[in-house]
């Protein structure tokens, strides 16, 4: 089983984690267009590559960032949100 390193709890099997998708900046709802907002809500960058993602360590309730290669399934680094 894949090992993922929680910044708080160290290396743990991936079954202890939940995936939170790619980190995407939210546009300012007050100023963006409807189309920009819909793009934020629905569209994804599905292209493979190295992405920054949300991951969640379920047992400890820790959300953190992971930089991961979505082709090789290789985690480059993980860290807590500032």
């Amino acid at each position: 089983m894949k090992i993922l390193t929680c910044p708080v709890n160290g290396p743990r099997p991936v079954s202890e984690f939940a995936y939170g998708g790619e980190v995407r900046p939210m546009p300012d709802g007050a100023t963006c267009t409807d189309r920009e907002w819909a793009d934020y809500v629905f569209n994804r960058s599905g292209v493979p590559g190295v992405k920054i993602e949300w991951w969640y360590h379920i047992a400890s309730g820790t959300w953190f960032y992971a930089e991961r290669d979505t082709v090789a399934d290789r985690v480059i680094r993980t860290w807590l949100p500032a």
Partner: protein
Amino acid sequence: MPYQLLRFAFASKHPEPRMFRTPERLKNAYDAVIIGAGGHGLASAYYLARDHGMTNVAVLERGYIGGGNTGRNTTIIRSNYLTPEGVAFYDQSVRLWQDLSQDFDLNLFYATRGHFTLAHTDSAVRTMRWRAEVNKHFGVDSELVGPDEVRKAAPQIDITCGGHAPILGALYHAPGAIARHDAVAWGYGRGADQRGVEIHQQTEVLGINVESGKVTGVRTTKGDIATPRVLSAVAGFTPRVTDMVGLRTPIYIHPLQAMVTEPMKPWLDPILVSGSLHVYVSQSARGELVMGASLDPYELHATRSTLDFVEGLAAHMLDMFPFLSNARVNRQWAGMADMTPDFAPIMGTTPVEGFYLDAGWGTWGFKATPVCGKTMSWTVANGRNHELIKGFNLSRFERYELTGEKGAASVGH
């Protein structure tokens, strides 16, 4: 013995020609280019040639014919969907399926087995009733049945599922079927090839030329092509192709895994699906139990296998069929599923003129193969969306008009 077999014994040489040629090189220009020689791409090519007279068509495939999700899925065919758009679309597909072997003169082993979607909770029973009602409304043969009907069709099942997930009922869909998946791609490939379509295997698309919002050509590992029309039918590779034309879509890629047992004497006639236990299972013509479960939990552009998958699926299989303890799992594999937020496909025209999308097929693409070919070929030939796929256009998201099957998928409690 069928007469078709007699000629084999009495011919001095194997009396079968090539199913598909290997073209020497790409032409400079085609009327249309189809990316992906899976079931969908080849079906689109087949109907483009057969129904629309477009034969100056190239199908480009980075691997080999039917090597993607066409050859990796668990081959279930059904039309018991929830939304009117879905039911009408898949119903048309099932009708096409039923004559496909004769169309191709190639036996796809299309076997109507009956399909049970098991309900283990009262909320699931409600959802099954909803689907049954919508199906019946459109003339699709579906019925909410009780546990006794399940027992009648699969007498060996533990109706309590190990005591913790008793089967309260099921959506029974009599036309549910399975077919030999590879042969579907071969049949469409052969038919397209016979009508003049070129299938280029081991030919990877590197880029798509777009000028002033219009498709003008395709760049490949075997050279560049001019074409005004490109149809992308590449399932798990869709984001790579849409990226080439600068198109953003909601599609995200998760692996979907499956596994198969050693052959055993046939005993399971129907196709059984349990949402609660995350199991779908049927017995193939070879006697293997073909099994799948839910999608892998995170994005990955690879077809690696995981042990957790087989462990979980095996446990749930034994809940349903405890006597399978001694049966052995022979092989597991995976495909890359192109998921959408509303569990419905993305089909038809796009903001890029001449670029057509047949994607978002997630875990349900195989059953749609014929109707996709029909509707996408019509769409490419006519430059506008076929009536049956209007609800599946990419533009539905920015209009917040999701047509999805998600409605039922997330009915909880």
